[in-house]
């Protein structure tokens, strides 16, 4: 930029340099530091806890329980409302399929050729494992008794 071009030119040059300075100035802290910290935290906590705690919504325990206690090829039922933690369920629980319980007919034990996960939840309920969304965007582990 031509510095002899008057005040206007200097303002434009300053804005362009300011943009470059803002961008490059963030490299050490936000671009590198924050990214490395984020990756470390993700590796420590695991996907469910990292994502839900970051979003300040409850439900990580329920997802971790499902990951530990259901077959990978199973179907997990879910029940409305779906906003919040349930939105992460499909990706975090894969290769399990997360299926709207209203689409599963009463008495069914399989869906799309897969077994619907069943058992006893930590609270002692017995039946088809169902992930229930809550009004607070969290999750509740419950069951469906066909």
């Amino acid at each position, binding site marked *: *930029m031509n510095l002899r071009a008057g005040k206007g*030119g200097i303002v*434009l040059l300053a804005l362009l340099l300011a*943009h470059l300075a803002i961008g490059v100035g963030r490299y050490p802290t936000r671009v590198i530091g924050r990214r490395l910290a984020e990756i470390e935290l993700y590796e420590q906590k695991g996907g469910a806890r990292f994502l839900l705690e970051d979003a300040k919504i409850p439900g990580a325990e329920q997802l971790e329980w499902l990951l530990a206690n259901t077959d990978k090829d199973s179907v997990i039922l879910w029940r409305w409302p779906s906003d919040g933690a349930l939105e992460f369920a499909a990706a975090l629980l*894969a290769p399990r*399929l997360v299926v709207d319980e209203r689409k599963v007919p009463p008495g069914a034990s399989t869906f799309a050729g897969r077994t619907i996960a069943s058992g006893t939840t930590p609270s002692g309920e017995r039946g088809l494992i169902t992930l229930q969304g809550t009004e607070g965007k969290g999750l509740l582990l419950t069951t469906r008794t066909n």
Partner: protein
Amino acid sequence: MERIVTGLLLSIVLFWTGACFWVRGDGIPDWWLPVAFGFGITIATRVRIADESPSPRWARAAAWLVICGAFVMLWHGALSTPSRHWDGAASFDAKVFWLENSPTLQQPFFATEGVFHHSPDYPLLLPMLVAMVERLAPEFGRVVLPFVYMLLIGVVSTALQRRRIAPLLRVAITAAVAVTPSLLTPGGGAVDSGYGECILLLATTTTAAGLLNRHSLWFALGITLMLAAKPEGQAYALLALAVAYARSERSLLMIGTVALTVTAFVWEPVRAALLHREPSFYMTLPVVIAAFATLHLGVVKLAPRLDTGRNRWLLLAAVPFLGLLAVQWLGPMFAEGNGTMAVYMRQADGAFAGLANLPAYFAGVFEFGISRLRLGTTLLIPFAALAVAKHCGIKLHDRSVLIFALLGVTATAVPFVLSPEPDLEHHIRSSLPRLLLHWVGPIWLLSASWLHELLVAADRCEAARTVPGPFSPHSRLRRE
């Protein structure tokens, strides 16, 4: 450089076109990705390119340092973990997982109604690219994300080269796009977040570059990519065609219309399958409108009495108002189902009442576009350049990119006028920064072009040995 960039853009579009066909059937064959890229690069070797003008070595080295530093961090961020932010983790990762296992929609995750599938009608370009790379190079699929960023930088640099922007300015503007904080800072919308924002930004930038250089191939590729990247790309593609129409860019309008039509017919069957319904009228609307615009341009050309610039400018000025009327009228037709557009169209009845959300929207634009520096000074430079030019009496050109960027930024208000969220503040906070990010590329191309014009005026002024520069109110250029 231009051949590589054109080849890569072409390859992505070729890959997407074939993939949309195969993904509905037995699956995308693994060989298709390398073959599509082979075709794209081969075709690009036959494209005529502009002469390259060298830039100062120190500036190039500095820019490469900055860009490579960002690329290394984005590479690390993309490959170290799955997506670490909301939409990437909730929507993108699940699609990639299932497509990587089996690149077809003929599997329960996509084909069975009732399976939880976040944002089912989102275009599958990015998930398909990542999944297919993952199949070829396990654990490396997500390198697509930083490479989209590099391609974006390549598009900017090549477009400015073709425009013959002063070498130092070209390097500075390329670096400016590369360091835009929203792209690099971890969070929703960042390059490695798994969100579709960067690839949509690549698409809008390619389209703007097509307008800037009257480059038909890039314009068409940009339009296709916009539709293939994200749902809002449909609206952006229409805006690009409206600009081509308003500026009487006949060849751009024609090829853009063809690109839109082909893309719509390639994508709609996939979209319909994802939504578990038959292909519908929905995607043909843009096609009808584009065809109408083409026809109208022909009429305007045939009937010179109608062909007054004022007509077209008035039409453009009336676009937001006409748009709201059209939304109220057409909205209910698209309000059914679980598609992204349907969620907004269910609010169409209250479109005019939604204007009450505009003050909050403008405050959001100021906060996320300017004061928080997430976009750096991106939004300020065109205004400053305009003010300087007006002050000095210099007429700036490149209205096409200006109108495209203006319409695009205006369009970012629509989701908030039709906001389905009860919490408007949250909606603005979570969506507006990403919507503004889509226009960073076009705005920088515009800024580059204008700054270059001001520089040229300054040089002319100096050559004429006038004491004050053209930026001074006393410049001779003003009187000229």
